[in-house]
């Protein structure tokens, strides 16, 4: 039955979806929820009409097309609103996640401050910048105090030893200025976002999964005598995040992800500058990779259109 006009789809009688339909529906999850709600059935209709009779598994070309199309649609969907404000919020989220990752292995010995840091990240993820500010300020004061060996808020036995994920004492390889820089960036960003008096968007819950991966000090791969050991898992997380940011800038021709990468790289560079005399080729190569990805993200939106229809 066919009806015309821009109406909602009519309720179809209950039926069992075929294996192919179920599998295509799973692939359509690559698309953002609003797009799926508006056009998911339309795409499914075309996919099923295009499929060979008797097929139960999606064609490889169609599956790849849906995954790439879905990711592209998600990126375009994200590139809305003020680019600098959204990029700043993204940068604040990333640095706050790194701040929490630094404290997470010490949750057993810092049972108050680690949850406070997690609450700060949670508030940032939900776009509650005013709530995040005091939580970040308190955690930041305590973190800088631990790095400097001061006891302004409560007594903490120094050095703080980890309970899991790491085997180094807290801020054993960081100075108070380097720790303060991470919190100062978050606090400044929160102030700027709060001063706009406009709603701040929420961020994905995937940021919570990033924290333990960035907190893990392993697997061991550098010499034990290295002054600034780099965590392989953290390197993987950061490289993947910077790579995704560059790809998003390329696809959406938008700078918001480049801004976030640049701010995060500035904060991360603080530790490299602090250990400038002890850096190995691995350190410089890794920093170079992050720099190249950030520059790639910054220049990607300027890429030329191949032709007038691109």
């Amino acid at each position, binding site marked *: *039955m*066919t*009806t*015309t*006009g*821009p*109406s*909602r*789809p*009519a*309720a*179809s009688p209950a039926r069992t979806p075929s294996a192919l339909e179920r599998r295509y529906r799973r692939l359509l999850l690559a698309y953002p929820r609003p797009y799926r709600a508006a*056009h998911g*059935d*339309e*795409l*499914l*209709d*075309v*996919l099923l*009409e*295009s499929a060979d009779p008797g097929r139960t598994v999606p064609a490889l*070309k*169609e599956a*790849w*097309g*849906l*995954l*790439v*199309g*879905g990711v*592209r*649609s998600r990126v*375009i969907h994200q590139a809305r609103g003020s680019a600098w404000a959204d990029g700043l919020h993204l940068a604040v989220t990333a640095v706050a996640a790194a701040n929490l990752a630094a404290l997470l292995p010490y949750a057993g010995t810092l049972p108050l401050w680690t949850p406070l840091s997690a609450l700060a990240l949670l508030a940032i993820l939900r776009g509650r910048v005013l709530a995040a500010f005091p939580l970040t300020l308190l955690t930041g004061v305590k973190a800088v105090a631990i790095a400097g060996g001061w006891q302004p808020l409560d007594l903490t036995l120094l050095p703080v030893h980890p309970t899991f994920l790491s085997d180094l004492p807290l801020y054993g390889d960081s100075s108070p200025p380097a720790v303060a820089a991470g919190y100062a960036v978050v606090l400044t960003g929160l102030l700027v976002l709060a001063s706009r008096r406009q709603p701040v968007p929420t961020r994905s819950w995937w940021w919570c999964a990033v924290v333990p991966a960035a907190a893990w000090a392993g697997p061991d791969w550098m010499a034990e005598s290295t002054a600034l050991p780099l965590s392989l898992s953290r390197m993987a997380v950061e490289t993947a995040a910077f790579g995704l940011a560059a790809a998003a800038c390329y696809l959406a021709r938008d700078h918001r992800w480049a801004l976030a990468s640049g701010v995060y790289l500035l904060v991360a560079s603080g530790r490299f500058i602090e250990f400038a005399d002890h850096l190995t080729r691995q350190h410089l190569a890794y920093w170079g990779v992050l720099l190249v990805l950030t520059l790639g993200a910054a220049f990607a939106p300027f890429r030329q259109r191949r*032709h*007038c*229809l*691109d």
Partner: protein
Amino acid sequence: MYFVLAALRAEPLHGHAISKAVKELSGGRVQPSVGTLYGILERLNERGVIQVDREEVVNGRNRRYFRITDDGRALVEAEARRMQAAAALVLRPAAS
């Protein structure tokens, strides 16, 4: 994108019909996946090169028909002229 716009010059079409027309017009050389095709349609729609002509509900599923706009028609014709001029450089009889 070129073949999508070329397919829409005759009449408004829905996704599956566009896919079949693109394959036919290109002699089977261009067969975009559904994900790729709808990515192209969304981008052309955002740029005002095509627009939704009407929506129909078939078997309980929404189906959008797209039509080319005047800007889109001018754009695809300009692109065709450009390709014709480029092809003429190679295909015209060599001056003796």
